């Protein structure tokens, strides 16, 4: 059962091959058995999951056969889930029981999904390895000595290890696409504003987007369909009509023009990953796509611009964590200053503090123009590059990451090296365009992902290409040994 994709589970439940309760129970026992070595879950909601599963079965036997009824999922722990701890993998919120539910979770619940719990992540979404979590890092099931990527680390691990078929994640600089690439999954970051941010703890408000990790494009399409759309509670939510993502999945790729940015293929890219990308290009050519070299000249400046903007926004978004109305408060504060200084020092990890300080610096008097304003201008250049490229091509393809997943602990003392690994993913967040990573090869037993980028609101095209690719390859279907 745990090997099934979401789409197949849906069919199986409809055909009564097994019940939601059986499936949920099975997954819960796998989690109990296997997660201790992986640390992908922060909170497992055993009781409520079984209750929801039973309720789903009852609904089904009374004749209601909604396609998403009884499907299991788990959520990145920055999505507020009413009545359930929402920790953002931080000591700050270790004791925080969310008083409301995020829109994306609510839509999935309403559609019939069963939540099995909350997934591990980098603290407040700040990190690319899973190692900044207050609850300890998650381990890559393909090699438990290695990082699974971040910040949606637990979201990737739990799906890759087949503890759950799909998960929600968030992507502000690559936090869905990179862990997807590192764990052999298909991960999608929709267009900025496609999915509501209401209830998603803010890290970098103008970059954050909710998204999904699954085994294939078809599953991503189901999830996107259930959650995309305007939400009046989010001022940055788009009113763009929602496509029928399933309808175009099976359309052939003939005539599709795909751009290859020449800046991607530099000496910073592990040449073996370059080979995987080339193989995928061949595969797509066979399916009818044509390839054109394009240029994204502002690419070298994307990482610094990203870190300035993200840190600046994060530094103010995290100012609400002051120990006054909720969250961690230090013991016996002597005065107000002490309350703030000690509560926040105790509550935040190293990386979070580092980014808060960078952000504070970038916004401070005398530095605002050189840092924050400059970064916003570079952001405009990056958007212009994409708009220009998309006049010529329908999609852009390239590697998701320049390197393979590194060993746990190997980059914790070198934040700059870690930041530079985000080179291929951050531009999409800066411009707000949608992106997807799909498995395209293996190197030394580790998965390698290839990234597709599309113009605004063309998630359907991303899913179509990935789906067609997955009809003719089996990278997405592999499972790490022991899981």
């Amino acid at each position, binding site marked *: 059962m745990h090997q099934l994709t979401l789409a197949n589970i849906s069919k199986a439940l409809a055909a009564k091959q097994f019940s939601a309760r059986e499936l949920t129970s099975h997954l819960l026992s796998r989690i109990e058995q296997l997660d201790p070595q992986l640390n992908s879950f922060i909170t497992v909601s055993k009781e409520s999951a079984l209750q929801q599963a039973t309720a789903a079965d009852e609904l089904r036997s009374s004749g209601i056969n909604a396609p998403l009824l009884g499907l299991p999922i788990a959520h990145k722990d920055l999505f507020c889930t009413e009545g359930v701890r929402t920790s953002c993998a931080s000591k700050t919120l270790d004791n*925080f*029981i969310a*008083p409301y539910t995020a829109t994306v979770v609510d839509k999935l619940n309403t559609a019939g999904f069963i939540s099995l719990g909350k997934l591990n992540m980098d603290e407040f979404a700040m990190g690319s390895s899973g190692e900044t979590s207050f609850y300890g890092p998650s381990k890559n099931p393909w090699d438990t000595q290695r990082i699974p990527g971040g910040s949606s680390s637990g979201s990737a691990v739990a799906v890759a290890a087949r503890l759950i078929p799909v998960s929600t994640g968030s992507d502000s600089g690559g936090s869905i696409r990179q862990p997807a690439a590192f764990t052999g999954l298909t991960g999608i970051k929709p267009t*900025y*504003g496609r999915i509501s941010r209401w209830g998603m703890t803010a890290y970098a408000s*103008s970059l954050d987007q909710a998204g999904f990790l699954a085994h294939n494009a078809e599953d991503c399409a189901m999830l996107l369909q259930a959650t995309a759309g305007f939400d009046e509670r989010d001022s*940055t939510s*788009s009113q763009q009509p929602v496509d029928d993502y399933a309808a175009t999945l099976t359309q052939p790729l003939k005539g599709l023009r795909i751009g290859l940015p020449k800046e991607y293929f530099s000496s910073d890219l592990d040449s073996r990953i370059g080979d995987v990308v080339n193989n995928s290009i061949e595969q797509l050519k066979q399916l009818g796509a044509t390839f054109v070299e394009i240029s994204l000249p*502002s690419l*070298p*400046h994307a*990482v*610094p*611009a990203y*870190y*300035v903007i993200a840190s600046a926004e994060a*530094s103010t978004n995290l*100012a609400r964590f*002051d120990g*006054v*109305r*909720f*969250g961690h*408060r230090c013991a016996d*504060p*002597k005065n*107000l200053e*002490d*309350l703030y*200084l*000690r509560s*926040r*020092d105790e509550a*935040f990890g190293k990386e979070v*503090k*580092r980014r*808060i*300080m*960078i952000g*504070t*610096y*970038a916004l*401070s008097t005398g530095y605002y123009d*050189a*840092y924050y*304003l*400059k970064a*916003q*201008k*570079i*952001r*405009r250049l990056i*958007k212009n590059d994409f708009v220009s490229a998309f006049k010529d091509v329908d999609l852009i393809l390239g590697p998701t990451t320049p390197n393979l997943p590194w060993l746990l602990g190997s980059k914790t003392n070198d934040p*700059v090296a870690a*930041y*530079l690994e985000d080179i291929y993913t951050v531009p999409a967040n*800066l*411009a*707000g365009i949608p992106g997807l990573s799909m498995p395209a090869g293996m190197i030394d037993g580790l998965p390698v992902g290839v990234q597709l980028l599309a113009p*605004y609101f063309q998630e359907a095209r991303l899913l179509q290409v990935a789906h067609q690719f997955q009809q003719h390859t089996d990278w997405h279907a592999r499972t790490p040994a022991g899981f």
Partner: protein
Amino acid sequence: MALKRCDVEKLAYLARLGMDDTQIDNTTASLSDVLGMIDAMQAVNTDTIEPLANPLEANQRLRPDTVTESNHRDDYQTLAPAVENGLYLVPKVID
């Protein structure tokens, strides 16, 4: 761009992070590294470029002036570290 220790102390205070000396020292070093990476931005000429604040470049939606919220104080205050008579308590603030 190398930061001085006193700069880092000021930043830490602005952000209300009560870091001890060891943390300040470590942070000074790593922040200087990160800022070095960030300074690469200065190489690009952006004199004629308009900043991009929001990717979608849309306008703010306005909401009607109707009350939609009701009182949930008791629920919300179960999350509070210190509450009395419905008020959130903090160490006395002197103006």
